[in-house]
């Protein structure tokens, strides 16, 4: 069993908005092994981005807090770190790229000025050394004209190029873990293919771990070793990627996969999950998916299901309870729904 | 509540901060302000504050008293008025005589020099008068001098003035308007330059003029009357009274005119200060406008209002007694003054007269126009008059006008029933009577055909006694016909450093030569 680089245990995050308190993260646990790519999948509002911000210590100070749980990075609890300690980690050991390459770079500084920052902070590099390092990194991510580009401003670059700049920024200090939050969502398909290709290449060259947050099951299929499926602030399923695609256990995961047009016959009625993703304030007791679940049981509304693990395949659903096994016979056998 | 506290705290913080910064700066201010230190042994400078700048430093152009009062320290007149009595006194002139109805002869003093060393002589005197008459100079005095036909130089010390009409008030014009300028200098440097760096024969020489800031002068040691006691003279321009007062109280300013009556105490209470007061030749009155078609065209109504207005109450209540009550159109300082009968305060008579005229007091609604801030407490007086008339039942709407508009309304005969106006400084009857009681006079508020004939007749008289009698008669008639409610001679109130020897003049001039430090 490989070494865990990041381990999250029962993480709960609370947001305060005036007097209202909401919990967008309601007990999330998962881990990332050294060198692997973990995909986190879920629809908007499921808490995947909040989780990543919690790992980076970038939750807004005043309005949010980690209510409970811990985040262990190399066995160091990140949730207990001081600001200063965290700063040493960020950009150095853990780095992050974001969804919007258009707005994630500061418009009034040149690419060089922005990339220089982490090198100066973490590596104490001289100016010329840093410049060299940056240029070589820019070349490494496949950017042409790196020597000129370094003195240009973000708005002079296209979206794809900016995302490459973001990736080079994240890679500069050779982090052990990189978190990529929807890195290709804002990009066109052909550019997305370029970026995914680049990420794969970079992954292959180092032993960096990658946490890839996305809503696109295709991206997961292409990139990840293991997958965590989140719904309404909880991990509902976690499995090896092939395992998951072959035999999804949670009704939500199944629904997600079945509703993809490519998994349905042309012009046929698509499979779809009824209803809407609940808002954090609407979640009460029981299983959060109960009101949309085709297999809902009386029990689901009353009791929150625990995580059932079966050969490293975790699922948070009462259907996995052994007493209900028979009902779901076909699924447990591992037939893919195609 | 919490937030309020924060604001309070923050505000005091700012005050504190500015106090700290200003504390250090304050020291330097004291050293920089001349003569601020009362222990200084020989104080020979004087700072006079004025509400406004001089329009120009060229003599004989701007009729504004602020300009005049300042430049009279630089230029001398031929004839001046006595500071106490208002009588004519010779300055650069030696004597004058009336040769005939059209000719005046003036003898000039000898040996007097201008600041630039040029000699004063008849040519200079002639040039100064011609300067006014020359249209190109756009002198605003020209309107008063149009009847002067020619000035002849008889000898270096004698000139003759020929008028196109009989001009009995010429000497007065000379005394009030004319200052002597140096022909050679003006010709040499041109009008524009001469207006910025004036040269006269006066007690003070020009040093520096920063517009809307200050005018600095220094003593002219060769002054023909002798060395001035005050060596440097500065006029500083502070438009706001409160700023003027605080500059005075903090010692930056030694002298200023026109203290509001309610502030007199704050000066007398100050150890280093005193108040000087004089009844000025400027008068305030309530015009009862009979140009406007309204109840005030009826003499009885005008008389009734005279009875209904309690001038004593106004004077004591609003002006704190700073003013000299008048009963007729002329001030006591005026040469042609005659004592006239007083209406007195009599509410019953007022009501009776109104009834006689066919008015129920309660049915009357009158308008009273007043300028704002032109005369001491003018709007307040207007409001007080309104409430006095209210007592007999007349409703009065007070209308406050900006000064320019006020004048324009009078000129265009747009005034309604009553308005407040001041006049002066006036030392002769003609300038008041002719300009305020004839049909064509721009600022007139009263006109009576019969009286107007009489006015024009008396104006032409040359014989002093006849003239005096004529004006006396006119004064009585004007009071009888109740052309105004005469109010008072304005009291000129000066704030003065305690150790400054200063006697206020009736003609509002500030002559530094007459002052000295104790």
């Amino acid at each position, binding site marked *: 069993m490989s070494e865990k680089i990041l381990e999250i245990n029962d993480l709960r995050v609370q947001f305060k908005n005036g007097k209202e308190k909401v919990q967008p993260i309601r007990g999330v646990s998962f881990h990332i092994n050294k060198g692997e790519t973990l995909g986190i999948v879920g*629809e908007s509002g499921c808490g995947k981005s909040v989780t990543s911000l919690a790992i980076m210590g970038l939750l807004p100070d005043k309005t949010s807090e980690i209510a409970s749980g811990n985040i262990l990075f190399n066995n160091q609890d990140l949730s207990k770190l001081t600001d200063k300690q965290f700063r040493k980690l960020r950009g150095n050991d853990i780095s992050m790229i974001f969804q919007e390459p258009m707005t994630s770079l500061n418009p009034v500084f040149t690419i060089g000025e922005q990339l220089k920052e982490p090198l100066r902070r973490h590596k104490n590099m001289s100016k010329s050394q840093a410049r060299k390092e940056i240029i070589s990194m820019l070349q490494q991510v496949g950017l042409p004209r790196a020597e000129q580009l370094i003195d240009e401003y973000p708005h002079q670059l296209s979206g794809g*190029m900016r995302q490459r700049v973001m990736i080079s920024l994240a890679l500069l200090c050779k982090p052990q873990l990189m978190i990529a939050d929807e890195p290709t969502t804002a990009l*066109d398909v*052909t550019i997305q*293919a370029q970026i995914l290709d680049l990420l794969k290449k970079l992954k292959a060259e180092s032993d960096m771990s990658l946490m890839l947050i996305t809503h696109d099951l*295709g991206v997961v299929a292409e990139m990840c070793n293991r997958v965590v499926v989140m719904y309404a602030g909880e991990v509902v399923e976690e499995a090896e990627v092939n395992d998951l695609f072959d035999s999804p256990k949670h009704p939500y995961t199944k629904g997600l996969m079945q509703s993809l*047009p490519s998994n*349905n016959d*042309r012009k046929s009625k698509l499979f779809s999950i009824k209803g809407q993703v609940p808002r954090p304030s609407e979640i009460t007791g029981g299983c959060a998916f109960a009101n949309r679940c085709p297999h809902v049981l009386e029990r689901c509304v009353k009791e929150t299901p625990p995580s059932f693990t079966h050969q490293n395949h975790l699922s948070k659903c009462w259907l996995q309870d052994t007493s209900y096994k028979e009902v779901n016979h076909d699924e447990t056998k591992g037939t*893919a729904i195609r | 509540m919490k937030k309020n506290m924060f604001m309070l705290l923050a505000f005091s913080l700012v005050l504190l901060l500015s106090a700290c910064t200003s504390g250090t700066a304050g020291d330097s201010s004291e050293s920089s302000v001349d003569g601020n230190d009362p222990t200084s042994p020989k104080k020979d400078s004087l700072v006079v504050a004025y509400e406004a700048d001089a329009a120009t430093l060229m003599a004989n152009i701007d009729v504004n008293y602020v300009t005049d009062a300042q430049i009279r320290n630089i230029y001398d007149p031929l004839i001046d008025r006595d500071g106490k009595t208002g009588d004519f006194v010779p300055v650069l002139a030696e004597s004058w005589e009336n040769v005939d109805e059209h000719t005046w002869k003036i003898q000039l003093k000898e040996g007097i020099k201008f600041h630039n060393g040029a000699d004063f002589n008849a040519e200079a005197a002639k040039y100064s008068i011609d300067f006014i008459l020359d249209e190109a100079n756009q002198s605003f005095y020209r309107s008063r001098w149009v009847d002067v036909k020619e000035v002849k130089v008889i000898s270096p010390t004698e000139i003759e003035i020929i008028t196109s009409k009989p001009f009995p008030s010429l000497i007065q014009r000379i005394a009030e308007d004319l200052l002597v300028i140096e022909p050679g200098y003006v010709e040499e440097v041109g009008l524009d330059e001469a207006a910025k760096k004036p040269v006269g024969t006066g007690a003070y020489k020009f040093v520096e003029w920063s517009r809307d800031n200050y005018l600095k002068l220094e003593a002219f040691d060769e002054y023909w009357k002798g060395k001035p006691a005050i060596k440097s003279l500065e006029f500083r321009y502070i438009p706001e009274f409160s700023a003027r007062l605080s500059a005075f109280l903090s010692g930056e300013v030694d002298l200023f005119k026109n203290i509001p009556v309610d502030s007199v105490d704050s000066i007398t209470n100050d150890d280093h200060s005193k108040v000087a007061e004089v009844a000025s030749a400027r008068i305030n009155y309530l015009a009862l406008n009979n140009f406007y078609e309204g109840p005030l065209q009826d003499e009885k109504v005008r008389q009734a209002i005279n009875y209904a207005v309690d001038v004593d109450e106004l004077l004591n209540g609003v002006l704190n007694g700073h003013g000299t009550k008048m009963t007729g159109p002329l001030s006591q300082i005026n040469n042609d003054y005659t004592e006239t009968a007083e209406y007195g305060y009599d509410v019953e008579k007022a009501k009776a007269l109104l009834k006689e005229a066919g008015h129920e007091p309660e049915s009357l609604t009158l308008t009273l126009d007043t300028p704002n801030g032109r005369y001491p407490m003018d709007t307040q007086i207007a409001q007080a008059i309104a409430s006095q008339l209210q007592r007999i039942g007349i409703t009065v709407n007070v209308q406050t006008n900006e000064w320019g508009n006020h004048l324009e309304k009078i000129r265009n005969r747009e005034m309604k029933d009553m308005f407040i106006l001041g006049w002066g400084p006036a030392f002769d009857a003609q300038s008041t009577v002719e300009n305020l009681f004839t049909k064509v006079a721009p600022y007139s508020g009263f006109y009576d055909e019969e009286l107007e004939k009489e006015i024009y007749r008396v104006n032409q008289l040359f014989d002093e006694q006849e003239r005096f009698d004529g004006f006396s008669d006119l004064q009585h008639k004007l009071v009888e016909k109740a052309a105004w409610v005469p109010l008072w001679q304005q009291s000129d109130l000066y704030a003065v450093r305690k150790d400054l020897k200063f006697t206020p003049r009736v003609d509002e001039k500030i002559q530094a030569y007459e002052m000295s430090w104790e």
Partner: protein
Amino acid sequence: MKQKVLLSVNNLKKYYDIPQGLFKEKIIVKAVDDISFTITKGETFALVGESGCGKSTTGRTILKLTEPTGGRIIFDGNDIAALPYKKMRTLRNRMQMVFQDPYASLNPKKTVREILTEPLRVHKKFDHDTRLKKVKSMLEIVGLSEYHLDRYPHEFSGGQRQRIGIARAVILQPDFIIADEPVSALDVSVQSQVINLMLELQKEFELTYLFISHDLSVIQHMTDRVAVMYLGKIVEIAKTEDLFTNPKHPYTKALLSAVPITHPKEKKERIILKGDVPSPANPPSGCTFHPRCPAALDICKTQAPKTSEHGNSHSVSCHLYNKIEEEIPHAISHS
């Protein structure tokens, strides 16, 4: 069976001027540059392409939301480009639009009742009571209910809003609907609901769709014919199945190959295009795709390709097909 042509677009152009100051010549952006296609009654025609390729502009120009610079748009015999504003307004009850952003396309100050009644009111259909009945039944059809009537758009989720947007478009029972990226702002689980709704509505009201999208899997699922756009031009038109099984234009091939796999075990030969889409303000010479084209020939740099037909209403604009069939290089064939 000869299908009736509902809409035909001939040589449509839409250029934008960008003034560059007093002394410089203005830049002309050719957002849509000489495109032609026809849509027959009852079919779903797709425009696909990456952002900035002009697919949305095409949709808006057809509805005369922007004036075309050139070309003709014939809708059921009416020349839309030449139609005066008022006439166009009356024609609009037969042509409707569904927008990408369901939130931005609903007036935040209006209730659902107002939003849905408006088209009926504008086109003076029915009396007050009938309108309300219509609105209610429409709400049922799109999966909402009567008690949503007096809600404001912000009280709905994205999927619900898009249902309202679709209801507004369909309530007039138009012949033709332009759907501009109707599902791309939606979550996967909701996306399928909306697609289903659109398919159902099409059946029920015999609708013709112009479906604009960048999502190839959605297009594959629900359209009959596809036009692929690149930099303002149509590079390939084909029946949907035809296009997905036998793409001809190198760009189409690259586009299809870039779609992520659906299962980790799937192996896919990928054509990674070099560089970014050029700016339409400064398009490359010749074939605008040539700088990125893996199969570019010399001629591509100088000459714009002609459109060639390849049977079964499959046409393509590429120099590779301007020559004889045998010369097609095999290097870029789809795996």
